[in-house]
Structures are given as C-alpha cells and as structure tokens.
C-alpha cells in the first residue's frame, strides 16, 4: 500500500495586501483574555464594548445584567424566534469571543451562561451610577477663554489634515512631530525612501486616505497603542482614556487634575493629532474635539443626527456621481483631488470643481494598487454631496446613494480580476484502493481541511495546515 504526497508549488497568494481596518471588536478579539480582563475594570470600555456588540447580543446582556446566577443556555436560546437562529448563534459567539460571558454549570447539570463579573459590575456603574468618577471630571472654574464648537471643529480638522498632507508629501510638512512620523512608519502607511531616507507614502497609505476620518483616527491610534507599550505606557490605560474622551461632551472643558504622568504624555500626543484642544501645555484643562468623540462611532458610518450640532459645511460631502460614470467633485484641496485621481480619469479642472470619469482602466489601475472596489464605493458614498443623499431613486430607498449601474460595474471590474483563488495545499494521490481513498477523504472532510477531491482520479488536496494531521491518520490507518 503506498501513498505519495507532493507539495503543490506555492504561489504568491496576495501580491498587494489590502489595508486591514479592524473595529474595536476585532481589535479586542486579537488580544489576550488577561488584557480583556484588565480592560473590563473600566466602565468606559464596558460601555464601548457593549455598543459594538451585535443587536441581539446587546439584548442578551441587558437581560442578564440584573441576574445574579447562571441562566440555562436553553433559556437564552428560547428568547429568539426560530427563524433567526443564525443571528442568535452569531450573537452568542461574539459574547464568548470577547469573554463578556462565560459558560457556567447550573445545579441540575445543564450548561448555562453567566456574565463576567467585572464586566457586569462596571456596565452597571456606567448605566446606573456608583463607583469612582472618571479621571478627568474634577470640577473646574469656568474658563475665561472658553472655546465654542465651531472653533474646536476647525482646530481638529486643521490638525488632522496636517497629518494627511504630510503623508501625500504636500509642501506643508511642519507641525508634525517625530512621534507621528514613527507611527506612520510603524503602521506601514509610509516607508523610508531607499535613497535619501525621507518618508514616502506606501500603497497602504493611499488606502488609508480613502477611509472615513473616524476610521483613519481609529486605525492610527491602534498603531499608536502598539507602539505605546514600548514607551512604558499601558495600552489598557490609554484605551480606557480614549474611550473616556469619546463619551465626553463636545464643547465642554475637562480637568487634567489627578492624571498620571503617563496619561499627561498621552494627552500631549492626542493634542498633537487634534483629538483634544489645549490652549497651553500646562493649562490644566482641555477640550475634546469631534475626532475624539467619533472614535466610538467607527462602525456606524452615519454621522450623529439630532441634538448634536452638525459638522461644518466643508466636512460634508462634495462628490456627485452620475449614471454615465462621470464624477463631479466640488473641492479645492489638492488632497481630495489626488485621492479622486487614484481611481478616476480626471478630465476637467475648474477653480471649485473637478470632473472625472470612472473608466475600466482607471479603476483597474486602482485595483492593481491594492485598493478594493469596496473601498472605492465606500469613499464615494461617504463623501456624497447632500444633493445625492436627498434624491431618491424611483421612490425606492436603495442601500447606496450611488447609481446602481456604477456600483455594479465597479464590482464587476473587481471580480473579473479574481477569477482564480489560490490556496496552498498538499496532493494525495496514487491510492491503491477506492476504499483507502474514501476513508482518508472522509477523514479530511470531517476535519474540515479538504480543499478538493476527485473520485475518479483518487486524488485529493488537503490544506497545508491539515496536512500533518491527515498524514498521521493515514499512517495509523495503513498500519492497522
């Protein structure tokens, strides 16, 4: 009995990696349970994590919040109607992944769920009160030079654009510190030029520019937190402070009293990126800006409506896309024109208007650069002109404000590049009998590592990860 295994030649799977932007959920998932445990000691984090949970999971948590003993899993299942079993299992999974709840046996032998103690305690504190106040809320004398919301918005926008302009290498390079540059380099958004050592933007950097501002800030801060540990800043403490900021009120001043030295350093960094405004380094008070407030809203792309004042005109959308693939952008900034130029062919330029057209070539050029169709569509959607948002397409509220033809076409241009998918694997062939083949195939299938198989040729392909396991099984099987 013989079995031969050959390794398939491994191909370069993904020549241009696309930029990963994790939301809080995915970020926390990738961290250790101990880290999560420390995080759940902060009410702010509990609140932020709660908001990031799937809808059903939020209701599970709130229903379990005031229950002091484990609840049978069967009971939790019965809360959701049968037709939504998929959503239900997804919600349960999310809660387990973030260790918001743990399995706990019930005195009858049934498996049950119980919320993590610290999470439960601190979510209750955030909701109902109790516990210690957050670090920045000591009372203050009224500020003689109080700043209004419009000022803070302008300030935040200017600071953040400073970073973006630096990335695209515009003339304006001052006002950005070595720290910020280090983070950009660390994140792989920029890289040192081989010749003169100056920082130049990478492909990932261009994708970064296409994200919404809230996502940009969040991604940037994620990398900041990665580097923070090296500078003896505790990531948990920073994250907690960040979320504390995001739950503050716009246009209100907060005190720096009682903050540790590390946090004051962190505050200075945030000030540099425009997340907080401070008149002087030693002012003893600071104002969070909209950039900081939006950290908690990375997932919901929609800006906050209603009682919170709307952002100024310049932050609103400026792009109009027509069904004939023409793109009209009412903008004057070079940054925005350069971004549009990534995936459109620009044809006219007027003082306040740029006209471009989406062509197969221009979009494919962007796709080759690692930008995904989703990112392009998201960018166009994000910055749609208010006029586009108001117009309704034939009385039907579509999911996207863009013309459906354009959306479909961009997607098609992307999929025509993805006709092959590459997976690494190991071929098993030359089986002596059909029975041997069937045994091994079924085993591989049950392990979920079977990529492809052919009954007639008695050939199967197993993923690289599952190879050792399948080989071991085969040895055991062929011996007996």
């Amino acid at each position: 009995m013989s079995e031969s295994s050959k390794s398939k030649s491994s191909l370069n799977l993904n020549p241009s990696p696309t930029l990963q932007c994790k939301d809080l959920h995915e970020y926390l998932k990738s961290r250790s349970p101990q880290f999560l445990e420390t995080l759940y000691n902060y009410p702010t984090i509990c609140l932020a994590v709660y908001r990031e949970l799937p809808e059903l999971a939020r209701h599970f948590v709130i229903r379990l919040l005031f229950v002091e003993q484990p609840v049978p899993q069967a009971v939790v299942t019965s809360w959701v109607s049968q037709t939504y079993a998929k959503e239900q299992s997804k919600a349960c999974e999310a809660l387990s992944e973030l260790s918001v709840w743990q399995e706990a046996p019930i005195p009858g032998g049934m498996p049950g769920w119980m919320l993590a103690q610290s999470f439960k305690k601190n979510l209750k504190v955030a909701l109902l009160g109790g516990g210690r106040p957050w670090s920045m809320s000591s009372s203050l004398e009224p500020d003689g030079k109080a700043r209004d919301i419009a000022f803070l918005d302008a300030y935040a926008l200017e600071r953040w654009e400073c970073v973006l302009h630096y990335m695209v290498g515009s003339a304006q390079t001052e006002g950005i510190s070595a720290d910020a540059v280090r983070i950009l380099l660390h994140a792989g958004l920029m890289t040192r030029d081989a010749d003169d050592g100056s920082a130049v933007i990478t492909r990932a950097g261009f994708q970064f520019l296409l994200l919404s501002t809230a996502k940009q800030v969040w991604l940037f801060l994620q990398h900041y937190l990665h580097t923070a540990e090296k500078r003896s800043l505790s990531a948990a403490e920073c994250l907690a402070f960040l979320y504390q900021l995001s739950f503050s009120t716009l246009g209100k001043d907060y005190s720096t009293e009682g903050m540790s030295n590390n946090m004051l350093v962190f505050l200075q960094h945030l000030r540099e990126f425009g997340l907080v405004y401070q008149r002087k380094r030693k002012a003893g008070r600071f104002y969070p800006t909209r950039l900081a407030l939006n950290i908690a809203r990375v997932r919901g792309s929609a800006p906050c409506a209603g009682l919170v004042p709307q952002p100024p005109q310049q932050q609103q959308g400026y792009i109009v896309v027509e069904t004939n693939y023409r793109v009209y952008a009412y903008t004057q900034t070079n940054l925005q024109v350069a971004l549009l130029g990534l995936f459109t062919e620009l044809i006219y330029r007027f003082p306040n208007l740029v006209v471009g057209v989406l062509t197969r070539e221009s979009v494919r050029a962007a796709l080759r650069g690692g930008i995904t169709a989703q990112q392009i569509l998201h960018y166009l959607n994000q910055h749609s002109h208010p006029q586009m948002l108001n117009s309704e397409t034939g009385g039907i509220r579509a999911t996207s404000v863009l013309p459906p033809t354009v959306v479909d076409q961009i997607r098609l241009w992307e999929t025509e590049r993805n006709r092959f998918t590459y997976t690494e694997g190991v071929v098993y062939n030359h089986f002596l009998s059909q029975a041997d083949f069937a045994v091994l195939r079924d085993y591989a299938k049950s392990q979920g590592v079977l990529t492809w198989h052919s009954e007639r040729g008695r050939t199967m392909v197993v993923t690289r990860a599952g190879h050792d396991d399948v080989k071991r099984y085969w040895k055991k099987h062929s011996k007996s």
Partner: protein
Amino acid sequence: MADDDAPSDSSLLVIVVDTNPNQRYITEDPKLLTGCLDAMIAFANSHLMQKSSNLLAVIGCHFHKSEFLYPSPGKPLDVRQIDGQYELFTLVEKTIKMRLVNLIKSQPQDDKPGESLLAGALAMGLCFISRMRREAAPGIRMSSRILIVTGSSDTAAQYINYMNVFFTAQKQQVLIDVCSLDKHLSLLQQGCDITGGLYLKVPSLEGLLQYLLWVFLPDASERGQLVLPGRGRVDYRAACFCHRELLTIGYVCSVCLSVFCKFSPICTTCHTVFKTGGPLPIKPKKKKMKV
C-alpha cells in the same frame, strides 16, 4: 407598520410618563412613584446605551398640563460627574428629576386632580418626532416610537383625541407602546394595535425595570427577532360622541361617521340634518296591482 427589514441608523424614543397624583398606585403608597421613576430613567438610559446615535425625549403628563422633562428647552444643565456613571446618563437623570419637581410644584393647589392629559402628551410627542425627522441630516434613517407609562384608568372622555393621535402615528410610521401599571386599558390597547406597537399590563410593580427592558427596549426592526408577548384580543368598541361611553351598537352619522348612543335629528359634529326622523319607518308594502 414601520420599516421592518432595514435596521435604522438611529432610533428615537419618546416616553410619556403619567405623573398624575390620583393614580391608584400613588395614592396607596406615594413612595412607589420614586421607584417607578428610577426604573423609567434607567430604561431611558439603556435606550441611549444601545447606540450612540439614539435619541430620547421624555414628556411628563399631569392633569393640568404636559411638559417636556428631557431634553430641557434652552441650554442643557451643566453637569459634572459625581460617580462612575456616563456623563450623558447623569444629565438625563438630573434633568428629568429637576423638571419633574417643577412640573409638580406648578400644579394648581385648589383644583381637584382630574384626568391625565395623555392624548395631548402623545400629540406633543408626535410633533417632536416630526421635528427631529425634519432636522436629521439627509440620508439618515430614523425609526421612532412612543412609550406610554401610566397607571391611570381608562376613560373615554378623550376618545376622539386618542383616535386622531393613533391614526396620525400610524400614518407617520410611529409605533405606540403602552405599559400599564394598574388597570387594563382598552382604548390605548387599540392604539398599540393600530400602530403595531406592544401592549403590556405589568403584573407587579417590583420588577418594572425588567419588564420595560425585556419588552420595550428592542427597536422595531429587532422585535421580529425576539420572542415577545403577543397581541391578544383587542377590544375595538368605540365611544359615543355624546356621552363618551363604549358601545357595541349605536348610530353612525352617514356624513362624518360620528358615533352616537342615542338618535338625534342633527349631527352634533358636522351639523347635518337627517331627513328621516326617528327610527326607520317600516315601509308599507306595495300593493300588487291586479292585472
């Protein structure tokens, strides 16, 4: 009734809370009101906790007038944190309590407490919702609902006002939920049924917060996924326009559809004069002509 499949970007909840002092649970034990109010505030904050874009309004409904308890008109209170609670939640709690005290203090002392002006408060809620919709940024989907928390008993005196409000809400795709603390309320239950909201009579006041969180916290789009109490049978009797009594059989004006328990020759609503006075005369049978 509301958009069931598409989850909305933000959700607006208007809570109408009945603060009338002649509700039975308050007259029996005035301290219960504090407990119920705390439960209501915790529920309101849990709604705000769901999403950062969620909005809230609370209307206090008394026997002499209804008033917004939150958001307060004008500049919001300047609140500093006193404990670990989220600042916004502290603001909600403080504002509601402060304004409720003002509302109760402003009640006329010599008058005997009458009926709560629930229909008026509902109309205020609807106005607030439509204002919020108008002011929302373009492209934002907002689902709205109104929750009534009341311990008053059912009266048909505001029947017409109720019906106007219910059908407006239905047209505006606003859900009306009712949480009754004391008695069964058939009129308001009709409103829930018309607008697609939920009706619940709380069996005991101790677990009020849990009842609120379990039944009324889910958004319109989430309600389909969860197992919630059913509609049950709805009493659809109408109240007559003359004596405000619930009727099974009555007289209906053929022009304006007003309902009366007794026949009157002139419709009091639209002043139509009915030509055939009195109960319909039995038509004399036509005599067959002999051929």
